[in-house]
């Protein structure tokens, strides 16, 4: 791995703390449906960064208390305790409209409403949030985690998305990153990122299939690995299939049994539903390593009465098999598009928590006719890959390169509501296409363009990405004005549009408003509004400074507390202990002024103690010498 530049960057590390990474570290983020991770590459080696709670994974769950977000395990506990204030699986809502999510709406215990323009609103604590805002809260937590772990400011990131995410979903993810105060250097496809980490670990060449089953999405990507190049040949997937669906199947079956045997409807309250889903998830996870397991759900939360039922893995496998068989279609589609057969695949790499389940491995084996490779860490490999891509983008790694594709065709709506594709699915990116537009009637001065993404012939059955008007055309006979529109798909798989009036040569600016997402100026506005609540960059630097000075003082003082009780009077000792406690709270609150003041207070109130301790040491030293002689 190339790491020539790392030595010079290490010079920036302040007062000799030997392990501090380069200033302005670029992190890799796996923003998952159920869990999220953040990773970094240091000296060519990728590693997962621990959360502030000391965990490798941060649940993608947000609880909102008086508008203040709590993210991660703290929020996950609230999932059952206060389901109305807790949002999970927000990734399933990213870049989607209200009408898109009718299938999963009933299984989400928090409120969902439709705004006037068809946008989706998540209702918590009487306030409306977009899925972008909720995702930004998770990303902000990941950013802070990384900053705490690295001791430097983090402003740039690579974020992964399911390969089968469409343009709206990618735009929404990028917007969430921006809203979290991150410059998103690249949106990378999850299976592609996983292949990078796999390739680095296994050092193998050949044609691999990455079977990526996450919490809410499934992707199958076929890649050619050769001489450091990771070339995606084809990808297919399903953005509504994941581990969550297995939980829901268990929950539905158990709720039916409970209803029959007790008459209780577990779906009657959000609280009950949340605890039912949690019990189902627990059962599912246990089948990754057990043959039998007990399903147990509280019949009335908190009342101690529960419904228990023994399950075998066989029963579980039979229940979920039909759901998982939906993965077959994606596999064969991808093989077809890559013009390959299963015999051409040299390795099937399993990615995502649910691939720990034997039934998932079994289905992958049935499809590809070979034992899947489970050597990579299914939960961490995507984040590690994102970090490797971040390393590539910063120019430190010149040996590896990803060549990716656009997962779904792009086209425009033509007469009769038919979609005419101009960029076919699985085309290598970046790529571009030029289309000519003209007027249909005399003296028409504008042309409407409707951009679509999807594989269906009927325009209405595809995802509408954007509608825009090519305006300001010179009046003339029909078919006379000619506007050339360039559609460009960048390396993020995101669409950009440029238009040029060929007669006047004028560049007409096209503003493409994402159908379900935020415009750049909307993001700016929200960032501006959020600034008051955020530590600005300058504040952050000040905080790190203060923290670095205060920490040793606090540590030393805490060590001396027993001495204080021995050498000082009780009140003075108690006071020192109290300041220490306050200071820990202030540290947690990341309040530099408070910490600074407490540090002074601690220093002045321990001066006398320090003197006494030294005096005592000298005394005992003398006694030691005295005894010897």
């Amino acid at each position, binding site marked *: 791995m190339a790491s020539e530049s790392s030595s010079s960057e290490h010079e920036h590390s302040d007062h000799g703390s030997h392990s501090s990474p380069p200033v302005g570290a670029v992190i890799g983020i796996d923003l998952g449906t159920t869990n999220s991770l953040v990773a970094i590459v240091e000296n060519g080696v990728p590693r997962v960064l621990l959360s502030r709670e000391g965990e490798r994974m941060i649940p993608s769950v947000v609880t909102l208390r008086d508008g203040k977000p709590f993210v991660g395990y703290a929020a996950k506990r609230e999932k059952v305790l206060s389901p109305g204030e807790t949002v999970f699986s927000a990734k399933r809502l990213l870049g989607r409209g209200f009408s898109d999510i009718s299938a999963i709406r009933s299984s989400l215990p928090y409120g969902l409403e439709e705004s006037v323009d068809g946008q989706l609103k998540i209702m918590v604590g009487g306030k409306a949030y977009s899925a972008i805002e909720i995702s930004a809260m998770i990303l902000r937590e990941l950013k802070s985690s990384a900053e705490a772990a690295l001791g430097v400011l983090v402003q740039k990131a690579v974020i992964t998305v399911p390969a089968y995410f469409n343009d709206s979903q990618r735009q929404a993810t990028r917007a969430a990153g921006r809203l979290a105060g991150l410059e998103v250097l690249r949106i990378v496809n999850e299976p592609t990122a996983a292949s990078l980490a796999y390739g680095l670990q296994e050092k193998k060449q050949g044609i691999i299939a990455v079977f990526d089953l996450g919490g809410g999405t499934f992707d199958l990507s076929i890649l050619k690995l050769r001489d*450091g190049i990771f*070339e995606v040949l084809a990808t297919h997937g399903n953005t509504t299939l994941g581990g969550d669906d297995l939980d829901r199947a268990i929950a539905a079956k158990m709720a039916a049994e409970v209803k029959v045997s007790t008459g209780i409807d577990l779906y009657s309250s959000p609280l009950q539903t949340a605890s039912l889903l949690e019990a189902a998830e627990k059962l599912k996870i246990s089948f990754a390593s057990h043959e039998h397991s007990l399903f147990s759900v509280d019949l009335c939360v908190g009342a101690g009465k529960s419904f228990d039922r023994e399950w075998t893995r066989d029963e579980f496998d039979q229940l979920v098999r039909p759901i998982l068989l939906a993965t077959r279609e994606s596999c064969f589609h991808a093989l077809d598009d890559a013009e390959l057969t299963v015999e051409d695949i040299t390795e099937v790499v399993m990615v995502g928590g649910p691939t720990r389940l034997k039934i998932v491995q079994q289905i992958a084996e049935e499809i590809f006719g070979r034992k899947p490779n489970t050597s990579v860490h299914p939960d961490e490999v995507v984040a590690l890959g994102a970090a490797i891509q971040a390393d590539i*983008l910063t120019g430190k790694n010149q040996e590896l390169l990803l060549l990716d594709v656009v997962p779904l065709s792009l086209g425009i709506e033509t007469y009769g509501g038919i979609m005419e594709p101009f960029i076919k699915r699985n085309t290598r*990116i970046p*790529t571009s296409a030029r289309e000519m537009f003209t007027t249909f009637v005399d003296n028409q001065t504008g042309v409407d363009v409707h951009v679509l993404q999807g594989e269906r012939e009927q325009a209405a059955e595809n995802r509408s990405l954007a509608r825009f008007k090519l305006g300001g055309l010179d009046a003339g006979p029909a078919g006379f004005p000619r506007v050339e529109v360039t559609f460009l798909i960048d390396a993020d798989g995101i669409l950009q549009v440029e238009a040029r009036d060929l007669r006047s040569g004028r560049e007409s600016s096209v503003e493409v408003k994402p159908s379900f997402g935020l415009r750049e100026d909307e993001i700016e506005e929200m960032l501006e509004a959020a600034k008051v609540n955020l530590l600005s960059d300058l504040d952050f630097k000040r905080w790190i400074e203060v923290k670095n000075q205060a920490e040793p003082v606090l540590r030393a003082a805490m060590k001396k507390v027993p001495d204080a009780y021995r050498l000082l009077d009780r009140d003075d000792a108690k006071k020192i202990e109290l300041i220490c406690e306050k200071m820990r709270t202030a540290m947690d609150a990341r309040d530099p002024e408070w910490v600074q003041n407490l540090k002074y207070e601690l220093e002045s109130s321990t001066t006398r103690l320090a003197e006494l301790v030294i005096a005592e040491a000298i005394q005992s030293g003398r006694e030691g010498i005295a005894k010897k002689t």
Partner: protein
Amino acid sequence: MKRCAFCGHETTEHICPKCGGPQPVDPSENYFSLLGVERAFQQDLPSLEKKFYDISRTLHPDRFAAGTDSKWKVISVERMSAVNKAYQTLTKRDSLRRYLLELEGVSLGRKEKAEGDSSNPVMPMELAEEWFDLQDAVMENPESALARISAFERGIRERSDELKSRVSFLENEYDANASREALLKIDKLVLDGQYLKSMDRDLIRLKSRLGI
């Protein structure tokens, strides 16, 4: 001699060897010159892949993501996009053939030709007769349908194989001595061959109607 769009250094590379700037796509460039291969129908796929990988290694926008000029970023996306399209086109026989004919200005007249009667892709008379006979026969005598259809399909396959070998002979001729005459013949053969494709579709439809 072309000059670097940024520093003026003489270069025909994708990336200026002096300043490292990616070069804008020039109108004189084509898919063959972009990938640095001969203008020919026959392409060696492994060496095409190697060239594509080598270019990607330095030109891909990932190499311009950190701290470089924003203009360089835009141009690397544009040029990489052209290289991607070139590779996609030249690695598939059909798309390569279409592209080369178009590049040589041969298939530009196709629209007019299609409207004229002489070179319209119409089925040869004897084949059309065979096709009508076949349809009548399977309606009258469904038991023998399978055998007759298979025989007909064999005939179609033979024609298509013959067409392919003639096209490939002409392609070699063009590759060897840049014969324009060969190009014109290829264009006509490809156009004539279209009826074979529509025949395939008709056959599938007929078979599904008969439940085969």
